[in-house]
C-alpha cells in the first residue's frame, strides 16, 4: 500500500526527471520499504519521503526544465514554437489554445462594454478623448481679446474668474475673421457622436449641481433670491431629482430652464460642453494683443463691404464691432465714405459681436446729440452716451439694420438700441439672443454656469435680448433682407 502511494507520488516530478530517474527512484523507495520495518522505522521513512517530496519537487521543477534548445527542430506544418515540453504541440492543443484566446478576449471586450460603472475597465474605456483641436482650442486662433463683457468683468471680478463665456470667446474669434461655426457643440462631431463622455453616475451629477448652486449663492447679484435658489437646488439634489437625468446637454438645459423660471433672469445659463471647456484666459496686461492686430489688418477690420447702392443708399457690411484702438481709422474712413448717402444700411447678418466701444464708435455717427446706448454688462457711466462726430451728415438719415439668426452679442446690442431708440428699421431674422453679460464660472471640464454679477438697469424698462434675441421690425428671411431694405430706402 505505502509502496504504491509513494511510487505514485513520484509522478509529481517533472517528466524529464521521471524519464531519467523514475525507475531508480521507485526502486529506492521499494528498497527502503523492504529494509525499514517496524512501526518507528516506517514512521521515520514516511516522514523522510514526505519531506523529501515537499522540498525536491518544487526544486526539480525549477531546475529540471529542458532547455529551449532541446525543443524539437524537425520540420512541422503550421507554426513552430520554442517549447518547454519535449514534444511539439499537437493540433488539438493548438486548436484549444486558439479557442481559449478567442473566448478570453471576447470576455474582456464584453466586460469593457457592459461592466458596471464601478468597473475599472469601463472607466478606462469611457475616458473621453480630449478635443483640443475643436473650436475655441485651435492653437493658431487669436488670443482672447477682451470683447463685450470684459469691462463689466473688470469692474467687479477677481483675477481667477473667467471673463467671458466660451461662446463669447468664439464670437471674438469670429471678430478676428476666423470661419468657425458658432455652436461649439455642433461643430465638434466626434463629441456629438458620444453623448455621455463623462462618467455617468449619480455622485457626479450631484456634485455638478451642488457646485452650480454654490456658485450662484456667492456670485449672483440678487443675494436674497440666490440663497433661496441654492437651497431649493440642494434640496432637489438631495431628493435625487437629477439622478436619472443624463449628465450632458439634457442636465444643462434642465438646470437653465429651472434657474430662469425661478428668477425670470434670462442671463443665467448652465453650459455643457462635450469637449473640454476652455480655461479662464488671463487678461492682456496692456494694449491690444499683436495677433488681434494682425487678424484685423488681414480682414480689413472685418469691414467686408462699403459701397453706395442705387438711389444714393449707403451700404456697409460689418462682420464685427472691432476695437477702435486698432480699427478706428478704418471705421472712420468707411463711415466718411458714406457721409453723403441719403440712407444707410448696416448689414449685420454675419456680425458676431465685438467691442462695446466699437458699437459706441459706430453709433456716434447716428446721433447729433448725446444718446444713451444701453449695455447690459455695464453700469451706466459717462461712457454710455454717444458723442456727435464733427462733420458727420448721417445723424438724421434713415438707417436700416439687417439681421440674421447668427447676429449675436455686440451686434445685437447695436440693433437693440437702435430699435428701442426708434433710430433704425430692423429687417431680417430674430437674432441669436446672447448678451454675454454674465460672468462665466467653470465647474469642471464639461460644465460651467454663467451668472450675472451686476444688475444693470435697463433704461427701456423691458427685458434685453438675452435668450430671446432682437426681433426685427420687418421679419423676412436673412437672404431677402437686403432687397427689402433697398426697396424701403428707395421709396423714401
Amino acid at each position, binding site marked *: 500500500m505505502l509502496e504504491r502511494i509513494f511510487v505514485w507520488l513520484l509522478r509529481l516530478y517533472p517528466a524529464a526527471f521521471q524519464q*531519467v530517474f523514475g525507475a*531508480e*527512484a521507485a526502486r*529506492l523507495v521499494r528498497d527502503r520499504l523492504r529494509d525499514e520495518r517496524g512501526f518507528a522505522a516506517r514512521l*521515520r521513512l514516511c516522514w523522510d*519521503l514526505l519531506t*523529501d517530496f515537499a*522540498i525536491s519537487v518544487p526544486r*526539480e521543477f525549477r531546475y529540471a526544465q529542458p532547455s529551449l534548445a532541446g525543443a524539437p527542430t524537425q520540420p512541422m506544418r503550421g507554426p513552430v514554437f520554442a517549447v518547454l515540453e519535449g514534444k511539439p504541440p499537437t493540433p488539438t492543443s493548438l486548436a484549444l489554445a486558439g479557442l481559449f484566446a478567442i473566448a478570453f478576449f471576447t470576455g474582456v471586450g464584453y466586460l469593457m462594454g457592459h461592466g458596471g460603472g464601478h468597473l475599472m475597465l469601463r472607466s478606462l474605456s469611457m475616458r473621453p478623448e480630449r478635443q483640443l483641436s475643436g473650436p475655441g482650442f485651435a492653437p493658431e486662433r487669436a488670443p482672447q481679446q477682451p470683447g463685450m463683457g470684459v469691462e463689466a468683468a473688470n469692474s467687479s471680478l477677481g483675477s481667477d474668474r473667467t471673463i467671458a463665456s466660451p461662446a463669447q470667446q468664439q464670437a471674438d474669434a469670429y471678430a478676428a475673421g476666423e470661419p468657425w461655426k458658432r455652436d461649439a457643440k455642433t461643430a465638434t462631431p466626434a463629441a456629438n457622436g458620444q453623448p455621455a463622455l463623462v462618467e455617468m453616475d449619480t455622485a457626479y451629477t450631484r456634485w455638478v449641481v451642488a457646485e452650480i448652486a454654490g456658485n450662484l449663492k456667492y456670485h449672483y447679484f440678487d443675494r436674497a433670491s440666490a440663497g433661496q435658489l441654492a437651497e431649493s437646488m440642494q434640496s432637489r439634489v438631495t431628493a435625487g431629482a437629477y439622478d436619472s437625468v443624463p449628465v450632458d446637454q439634457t442636465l444643462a438645459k434642465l438646470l437653465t430652464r429651472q434657474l430662469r423660471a425661478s428668477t425670470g433672469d434670462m442671463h443665467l445659463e448652465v453650459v455643457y460642453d462635450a469637449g473640454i471647456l476652455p480655461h479662464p484666459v488671463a487678461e492682456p496686461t496692456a494694449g491690444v494683443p499683436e495677433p488681434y492686430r494682425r487678424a484685423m489688418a488681414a480682414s480689413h477690420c472685418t469691414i467686408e463691404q462699403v459701397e453706395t447702392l442705387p438711389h444714393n443708399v449707403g451700404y456697409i457690411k460689418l462682420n464685427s464691432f472691432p476695437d477702435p484702438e486698432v480699427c478706428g481709422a478704418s471705421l472712420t474712413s468707411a463711415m466718411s465714405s458714406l457721409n453723403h448717402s441719403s440712407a444707410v444700411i448696416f448689414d449685420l447678418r454675419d456680425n458676431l459681436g465685438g467691442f462695446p466701444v466699437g458699437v459706441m464708435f459706430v453709433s456716434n455717427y447716428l446721433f447729433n446729440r448725446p444718446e444713451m446706448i444701453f449695455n447690459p454688462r455695464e453700469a451706466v457711466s459717462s461712457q454710455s452716451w454717444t458723442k456727435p462726430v464733427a462733420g458727420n451728415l448721417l445723424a438724421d438719415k434713415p438707417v436700416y439694420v439687417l439681421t440674421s439668426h447668427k447676429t449675436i452679442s455686440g451686434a445685437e446690442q447695436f440693433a437693440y438700441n437702435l430699435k428701442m431708440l426708434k433710430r433704425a428699421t430692423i429687417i431680417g431674422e430674430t437674432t441669436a439672443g446672447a448678451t454675454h453679460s454674465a460672468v462665466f464660472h467653470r465647474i469642471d471640464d464639461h460644465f460651467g454656469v454663467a451668472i450675472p454679477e451686476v444688475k444693470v438697469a435697463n433704461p427701456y424698462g423691458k427685458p434685453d435680448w438675452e435668450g430671446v434675441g432682437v426681433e426685427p421690425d420687418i421679419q423676412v428671411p436673412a437672404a431677402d433682407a437686403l432687397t427689402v431694405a433697398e426697396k424701403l430706402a428707395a421709396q423714401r
Partner: protein
Amino acid sequence: MPKRKLDPLPSAAFQILLSLADEDRHGYGIMRQVEEQTSGRVRLGPGTLYGSIQSLVEAQLIEEVGEGVDAKLGQERRRYYRLTTTGRKLARTEAERLADMVRIARERKILGGEHA
C-alpha cells in the same frame, strides 16, 4: 535551462561525493553510505538523492559507470556511479575549507579540541 547550483556545494552533494570516495555505488548504496557516514543524521530521499546525482553528473563531478546487479539486493539492474578526478579534487577542496573553518572555530574558542 537554469544551472543547478553547486557553488557553494550543498551538503547533500558533498555527502554523495564522500560516499563515492572508496568505491562505486548505486543510488540506494549511496543513500545507505551517507546514512552511515553521518551516523543516521542524513537519510536522502529519492528526490534529493537523484536531483543531486543529476547535478553532479552534469558538473562532471561524478559519472555513471553502467548498470550492474547488486546480489545483496536481488536481481535488479542498478546504475552505478563513480567519483571523477574533478569530483575528488572538489571534495578535497571542500573538506579543506571545512577543516579551515573548524580550525578558526577552535581558535575563536567556539569549538573544543586539542588546542582548547
